[in-house]
C-alpha cells in the first residue's frame, strides 16, 4: 500500500504551510465580485483578479473567498464609505489587509481586518479619466458645449425622478419667477444600476421630439458619491455630449464634478441652480429689451427735438426773410426816386439850362426856327421872349 494522507492530515499540512508562509496580515488588492451580509451580521465576499483588469467582463485569473466578521463590519464599512463616499459593493476595486487562513473543512479564506479607501478612490478616478479620454477620442467632448443656447429658455425637457425633492425644488424655483417656462418631465431612475439605461431612455425620448424643446435639464438632488456614480457613466455622458439641445446639468454633488457635468453645455450645482439660471437668463433678456426700448425712446426724442428746432428756425427765417425782401424793394424804390429827382426839369433849370420854344414847340435844333422868329425861353423864375437874329452860329 502506498503512503497516503487522510484528507484532514493533508489539509492540516497545507494549513500549517500557509500559516508559516503568511504569519502576519498582508495587503491585497482585488475586485469584489460578490458581497453579502448574512443574517448573523458577517459579511462574505468573493474577490477576483481579472486579466488586464479591463472591466468586469474579463476572465478571472484568481479568486478567493473573504470575510469581514460581524465585529468589524460596522467599522470597515463606515471607514470605506467615509473615505470614498460609496458603500462597499460588487464591482469595486479594493485594497484590504487580510489574515490568510486555511481551514481543513472550509479551505482558503481571507479574513479582512482593514481596508484602504484611498485605493478605491484612485481607481474610480482612473476609471473617470478613462471615460473622459474615451469621449475626447470619440470626438464628442465639445459637441454639447457648442450647441446654441436660446436667449430665453421657454420650453424645457426635464430628466429627473418624479418624486425627487430636487425636482420639487426646481419646479418651485421656476414657478416663483415672473417668467413662464413650459416644463415636460421625462421620468428616469437617477441612481443605482438601472439609472444608466433609464437616463439614456429618457434622453432618447426627448431627442425624438427635440424640436419641441429649447433645452434639457438633467436634475438630481444631493446624494452620496455612490448615488451619483452613474453620472460618470460613459454611456450617459456620450448621450449628453451628443445631444442636439443644450443640456443643463444640476446634479447635486458637494465634491466632484461628474463627467455629465463636464460635457453638458451648462453645468450647474443643484436643481435649484438650474431653475435660477433659466430665470436669470430670462431676466437678462428682459433687461436687454428694456434697454433697447430706452434707446429707441431716446432716438425718437432726438428726432422730434431736432425737427422741432428746425421748424422754430424756419419760422424765424420766414419772418426775417420777408422783412428782408420788403427792405430790399424799399431800397430799390428809393434809388429809383433819386434818379428821377436828379432828372427833374426844375432842377435842370436851376442849374442854368433853359427851354426854348417856338410856335412849333420845343426847339432842339437850329432848323426848328427861321431868322426873325419870335421864340420864348423858359428859365427858373419866368419866361423870356426873344427873336432869332442869327442861326448860323456854330457851337464852339
Amino acid at each position, binding site marked *: 500500500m502506498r503512503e497516503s494522507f487522510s484528507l484532514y492530515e493533508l489539509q492540516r499540512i497545507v494549513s500549517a504551510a500557509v500559516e508559516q508562509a503568511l504569519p502576519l496580515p498582508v495587503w491585497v488588492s482585488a475586485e469584489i465580485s460578490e458581497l453579502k451580509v448574512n443574517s448573523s451580521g458577517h459579511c462574505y465576499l468573493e474577490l477576483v483578479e481579472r486579466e488586464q483588469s479591463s472591466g468586469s467582463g474579463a476572465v478571472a485569473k484568481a479568486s478567493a473567498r473573504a470575510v469581514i466578521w460581524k465585529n468589524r463590519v460596522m467599522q470597515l464599512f463606515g471607514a470605506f464609505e467615509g473615505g470614498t463616499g460609496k458603500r462597499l459593493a460588487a464591482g469595486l476595486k479594493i485594497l484590504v489587509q487580510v489574515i490568510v487562513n486555511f481551514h481543513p473543512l472550509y479551505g482558503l479564506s481571507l479574513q479582512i481586518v482593514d481596508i484602504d479607501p484611498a485605493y478605491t478612490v484612485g481607481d474610480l478616478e482612473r476609471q473617470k479619466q478613462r471615460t473622459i479620454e474615451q469621449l475626447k477620442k470619440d470626438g464628442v467632448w465639445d459637441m454639447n458645449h457648442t450647441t446654441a443656447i436660446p436667449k430665453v429658455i421657454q420650453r424645457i425637457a426635464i430628466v429627473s425622478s418624479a418624486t425627487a425633492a430636487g425636482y420639487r425644488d426646481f419646479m418651485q424655483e421656476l414657478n416663483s419667477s415672473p417668467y413662464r417656462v413650459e416644463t415636460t418631465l421625462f421620468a428616469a431612475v437617477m441612481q443605482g444600476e438601472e439609472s444608466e439605461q433609464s437616463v439614456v431612455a429618457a434622453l432618447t425620448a426627448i431627442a425624438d421630439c427635440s424640436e419641441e424643446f429649447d433645452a434639457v435639464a438633467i436634475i438630481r438632488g444631493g446624494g452620496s458619491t455612490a448615488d451619483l456614480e452613474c453620472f460618470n457613466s460613459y454611456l450617459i455622458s456620450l448621450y449628453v455630449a451628443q445631444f442636439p439641445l443644450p443640456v443643463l446639468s444640476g446634479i447635486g454633488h458637494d465634491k466632484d464634478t461628474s463627467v455629465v457635468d463636464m460635457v453638458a453645455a451648462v453645468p450647474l450645482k443643484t436643481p435649484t441652480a438650474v431653475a435660477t439660471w433659466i430665470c436669470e437668463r430670462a431676466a437678462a433678456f428682459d433687461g436687454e429689451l428694456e434697454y433697447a*426700448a430706452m434707446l429707441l*425712446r431716446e432716438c*425718437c426724442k432726438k428726432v*422730434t427735438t431736432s*425737427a*422741432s428746432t*428746425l*421748424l422754430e428756425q*424756419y*419760422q424765424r*427765417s*420766414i*419772418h426775417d*426773410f*420777408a422783412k*428782408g*425782401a*420788403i427792405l*430790399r*424793394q424799399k431800397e430799390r424804390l428809393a434809388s429809383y426816386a433819386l434818379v428821377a429827382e436828379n432828372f427833374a426839369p426844375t432842377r435842370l433849370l436851376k442849374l442854368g439850362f433853359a427851354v426854348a420854344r417856338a410856335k412849333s414847340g420845343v426847339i432842339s435844333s437850329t432848323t426848328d426856327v427861321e431868322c426873325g422868329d419870335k421864340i420864348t425861353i423858359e428859365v427858373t423864375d419866368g419866361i423870356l421872349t426873344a427873336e432869332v437874329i442869327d442861326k448860323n452860329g456854330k457851337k464852339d
Partner: protein
Amino acid sequence: MAKKIDISYTEAMAEIESILKQLQSADCDVESLATKVKRASELIELCRKKLYKAEADVEKLFE
C-alpha cells in the same frame, strides 16, 4: 389760391424750404410776398401738429 394742405411732413418741409429760398432771392415778387409768408406759416403749423402727434404716439407706445 386753394393749395392743398393735406400733404406729408416731408413735402411740407420741402415747400417751406423752397419758399425760404424765394424770399432770399433778389427778385422776390412783392405782390405774392404776403401769400408766400402765409403759406409758409400754415405749413410750419401743420408740421408742428404732425410732430406733436408723432411725439404723443411714441410716448403712448412706451407707456
